[in-house]
């Protein structure tokens, strides 16, 4: 607002002013999202109990995303095995392939790629669904029928996707390792005993925990960003389209940023 009072042609002041407005915008956006997410989650202890709706969302978001997770996991494992083989072969250490594939998938690629696929598959559908409920006044209709949309719509989706993500990431890991085994052992001829032996020896429980913690955090991030973007969507067709795009972009970037932060903690 002060930008309108001070008319200036000094580019430095303009740039700093614009930067300041953007930072303020981001901070208030984050604050609003945190307030909606926490006020929704707080209702987990308030009657009526939303267990049935959590299960319904677990099915829709979790089971519904399994195929895409399985396909992504399989091809990730396959390409890792292939790339890893040619790199390791240069040093004559093909026998390390099993542990290389397993560590990459479990610590890094499983949670990150899994969560990125979930933003695209489940997150976008959450935002679009809630946004359309906003446009068609269904959220207002719930209010008028004395049903709190934060408890009924937002809460079950955040909880469901936070539970579903580590489960789906685990499946991503298992399928990825299996596919890596097929490519490495059956196609490229790495010794089966060396592949599995190295894999089992090099993976520690900490690696599994690190992957799961990441998955839980990413799931929560996807849930809160995507429900928020839908809930606050501008109630027009264009508004919902924009909100869905933004949810996927912000969710994906958020996952990558959070991944760096979490990785730096676990190393």
């Amino acid at each position, binding site marked *: 607002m002060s930008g309108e009072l001070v008319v200036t042609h000094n580019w430095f002041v303009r740039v700093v002013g614009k930067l300041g407005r953007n930072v303020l915008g981001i901070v208030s956006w984050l604050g609003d999202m945190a307030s909606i997410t926490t006020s929704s989650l707080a209702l987990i202890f308030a009657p009526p109990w939303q267990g049935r709706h959590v299960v319904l969302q677990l099915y829709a978001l979790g089971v519904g995303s399994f195929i895409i997770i399985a396909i992504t996991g399989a091809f990730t494992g396959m390409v890792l095995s292939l790339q890893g083989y040619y790199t390791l072969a240069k040093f004559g250490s093909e026998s390390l392939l099993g542990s290389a594939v397993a560590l990459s998938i479990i610590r890094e690629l499983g949670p990150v790629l899994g969560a990125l696929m979930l933003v695209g598959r489940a997150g976008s559908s959450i935002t679009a669904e809630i946004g359309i409920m906003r446009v*068609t006044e*269904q959220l207002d209709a719930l*209010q008028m029928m004395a049903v709190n949309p934060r408890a009924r719509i937002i809460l079950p989706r955040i909880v469901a996707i936070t539970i579903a993500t580590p489960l789906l990431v685990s499946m991503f890991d298992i399928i990825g390792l299996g596919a890596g085994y097929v490519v490495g052992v059956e196609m490229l001829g790495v010794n089966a005993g060396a592949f599995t032996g190295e894999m089992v020896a090099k993976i520690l429980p900490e690696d599994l925990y690190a992957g799961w913690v990441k998955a839980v955090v990413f799931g929560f991030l996807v849930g809160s960003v995507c429900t928020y973007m839908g809930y606050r969507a501008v109630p027009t067709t264009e508004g919902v389209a924009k909100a869905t795009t933004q949810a996927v972009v912000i969710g994906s970037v958020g996952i990558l940023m959070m991944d760096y932060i979490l990785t730096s903690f676990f190393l």
Partner: protein
Amino acid sequence: MIRSEKLTRRFGDVTALDQTDVSIREHAITVIMGGSGSGKTTLLRLLAALDIPTSGSVWFDGDDLAQVSSKRLYELRARMGMVFQYSALLNSLNVYDNVAFPLHEHTKLDESVIRTVVSMKLEQVGLRGFEHLMPSELSGGMAKRVAFARALAMDPEVVFFDEPTSGLDPISAGVVTTLIHDLTQKTKMTSIVVTHDVQAGLAIADHVILLWQGKVIAEGTADEIRQSTDERVSQFIEGRPDGPIPFSRSTTPYIDDLLHSSGGVNS
């Protein structure tokens, strides 16, 4: 029973509703009319506590809806029903579950009792036998009647109607207005109808409130409104394009725009 006191709602710099005092007659139909942007939908949303006023109060019996706790508001909502402009049926549920929704949420009635109630409500709107259809399979008029049945499910004291005839063919519009009239008489409920449909509005109204630019410009029975000598009222009733309510909404003199602007709006 419901009245507003110095009710004001601003959206940014725009005052949608300005110090409005209205009082709603009990067991009767109050029709709120006005052109686009007159503030009638804003007024309805404030009376239904779907929006929070910038200042002023909405009294529902002894409670100020602008001040009550959300718990108390949910209690009061059990006494209200609303039929939305686009019906706002929950599109994941069929007609039966939509009408039964408030009963499932707020009562512990046996399913057999709920089934009877739903049948009764659907019979009142003439749609018994359509329980199994999904909202996407209904025509606009039918969806509005189902929404009406849903609003009646809890036997509310007050029912709000937002543009009940907009987007409907003349026959469906006639059916819906007749339903509002008949059911208000039979059930002794209080109906608040927002519409720009002058003929339908005047035909069923016990009390008319006419808004213009966020203010009440006329109030009274349908006949009083028809015979009003206020130029603005008769312009609206007769639907003349120009008069005290101007045709042109441009804010700057046309000649200035043509002669002085050098392409930019803000130059």
